[in-house]
Structure formats: structure tokens, C-alpha cells
């Protein structure tokens, strides 16, 4: 089963709705509108040739400069029979700061048991509300945490520290 076949089947089924086909690092990648995420996943699951029945991973990415498409939710699927993997993305705009969730998207837990913890993790770090999830609460971070740490507005490290300047490690840096 090659990538052209998967692509052709998807276009046959969904037409214009599936876009952005490419294969970075040799893995077929495409996207669909976020309302259609379950339809696409269900099709990939049920189809007797495609058989993408294993959800390897699910995560989100925050692109703050990508107006209207700030959050990407990425599904990594595996066909264990033919050993083929694909990457499926949906993009969503981000809610105003201060809203309880950053985005809303349908949960995949009815389709994949594995999605339960993965969606909780994605919620924990990015604040995405998986509509219909049976137990959407933090899984990795402490429960008292009141923000979503992987959003890009939170710097990786405290930028005011000077004791970790590159200069100290002999590779340039800002200390003169």
C-alpha cells in the first residue's frame, strides 16, 4: 500500500476537504478541517484496505504567528497489518486569552482507547477541550496549575537569567 493509493482513496472519499498532502521524512501527511476529524479517522479505521486502527500518538503544536490556524492537532496513525504510518493534522483558531480552553475539538476516545490519556495530555499542555472526552483533566502536571505551559507565550526559560549565558560554555554569547 503506497502513499499515492492512500491519497487517492482519501480524495475519492472527501474530495476538496482533504488538503496539504506532503511526505516529510517519508511519512504521508495531510490535513482536514477540524470538524471533520472524526469522519476522516473513522474512514481510515473502517476501510478494509486502509485499516489505520492504531493511534500511535496524538499531540498539538502552537503556531502563534499562524493567524486563524494557531493550533494544530496531530494524529499519528499506524496500519499494523501493512506496517504503514501516516500523519493527520487539523488546524484550529485559538480562543481569546482568558477563555477556559484554547480550542474545542471532537474527542477520538470512542474510536481509540489510546486517545484517552493522549487527549488528556494534550489538554494539560495546550488547553484544548476535547468535546465528549469522558475524563478531561490534567494528567502530567499538578492539578493546581492554572495555565497551559506549552503555549508559546510562556518562554522556555526565564529570560532574565545571566548565569546560563552561552559565554560560560565557550561558544559566543552576550557577555563581553
Amino acid at each position, binding site marked *: 500500500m503506497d502513499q499515492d493509493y492512500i491519497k487517492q482513496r482519501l480524495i475519492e472519499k472527501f474530495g476538496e476537504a482533504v488538503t496539504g498532502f506532503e511526505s516529510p521524512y517519508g511519512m504521508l501527511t495531510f490535513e482536514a478541517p477540524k470538524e471533520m476529524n472524526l469522519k476522516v479517522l473513522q474512514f481510515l479505521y473502517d476501510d478494509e484496505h486502509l485499516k489505520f486502527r492504531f493511534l500511535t500518538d496524538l499531540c498539538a503544536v502552537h503556531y502563534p504567528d499562524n493567524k486563524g490556524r494557531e493550533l494544530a492537532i496531530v494524529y499519528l496513525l499506524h496500519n499494523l497489518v501493512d506496517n504503514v504510518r501516516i500523519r493527520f493534522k487539523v488546524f484550529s483558531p485559538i480562543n481569546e486569552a482568558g477563555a477556559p480552553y484554547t480550542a474545542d475539538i471532537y474527542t477520538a476516545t470512542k474510536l481509540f482507547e489510546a486517545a484517552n490519556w493522549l487527549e488528556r495530555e494534550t489538554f494539560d499542555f495546550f488547553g484544548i477541550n476535547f468535546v465528549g472526552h469522558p475524563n478531561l483533566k490534567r494528567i*502530567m*502536571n*499538578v492539578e493546581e*496549575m492554572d495555565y497551559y*505551559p506549552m503555549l508559546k507565550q*510562556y518562554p*522556555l*526559560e*526565564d529570560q532574565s*537569567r545571566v548565569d546560563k549565558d552561552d559565554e560560560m560554555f565557550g561558544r559566543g554569547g552576550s557577555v563581553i
Partner: protein
Amino acid sequence: MDVKEIISEPQSKQQETFPGHVIPTQGGGIITSTIQDVINWARSNSLWPLTFATSCCGIEMMSVAPSKYDFSRFGFEVARASPRQADVIIVAGTIVQKMAPVLKRLYDQMADPKYVIAMGACAISGGPFFYNTYSVVKGADHVIPVDVYIPGCPPRPEALLHALITLQGKIKSGLTREQIKANPIQL
């Protein structure tokens, strides 16, 4: 005198193998000592560590146990998986916010007297890479009192052995937290 000096002073009476004097007599000898010294000596030579390895430093701690470094030479052989049976907790690795209550609880469950060794940069200060993140506790001493710190990332097994021997010296000198509380010393 500084605590550090008392412990490391090589001629210190406290560091002798057995605390006391042997008075030779016919057919053997009589040992004189104080009960406190004997208790400290006994305690310090049978410290059972709790296996508490939360990240990479744990690998070094594991390598101290088997034959190459072998901490049982110094009385640490029985690594316990239960806090109820352990005397010393070696915090080997990063402590994250979510782990902190667990660490505190394990410490509380240990029977007195109990000792803490903070192994590696993470347990001392939150670590070489992680100390600015949202999830890491900036040192185990924010959660439980630490007796001996071992710098390094990770410290070599010899460094852990040295720390364990330092802890023994501290106990023999009567300078751990409980001992000072029970019996305030004049420095």
C-alpha cells in the same frame, strides 16, 4: 568548629572503627565506651537505603550497588523498596512538582532516625537544564531536610560512596539533625 571540619578531621576520635577504649586484662579485655557512642556506631554501620531514583542519577546509584563499587562494604547493602524499613533516602534525580508530595510522604513514612542524601544537581538545586521550568522543584531541600549533598551531573559512584561515608561520619559525630536536637552541642 564547623560541622564540616568535625566530620572530616582525620584524627577525630569519632571516626575510629569502634568508639571506646580496650583495657587489656587477663584472658581478653574490657571495652569502655558510652552507650550513645555505641548506638551511633551501630546505626552508622547499618544504613539501609531506600531505592528512590527518579532519573538519570539513579543509574549511577544502581551501579554503586553491584560488585564493581559495592556499597555493602560500608554497611549499605540492603536497599529497601519500602520506606518503613529504610534509614536513608538517596534522592537520586529530578523532583518534579507532582513528585514532591510523594517524596514528602515517603520521608514521613520512614522510621526515625532517618537521613537524606541529595544526589546530583537536580536534587540540590533543580538541575542543570530544568531549573527554570514550570514543573521542577528547585532542590529536594524545599521538601525534606537534607543531610549530605553530592554535586555532579551525575556524580560518579565514588562520590556517592564518599557521601555515604560522610553521612556515617556525621552520625558518629552526633551531628545529624535529630542528634543535635536531642543533645545540643556547643560548637
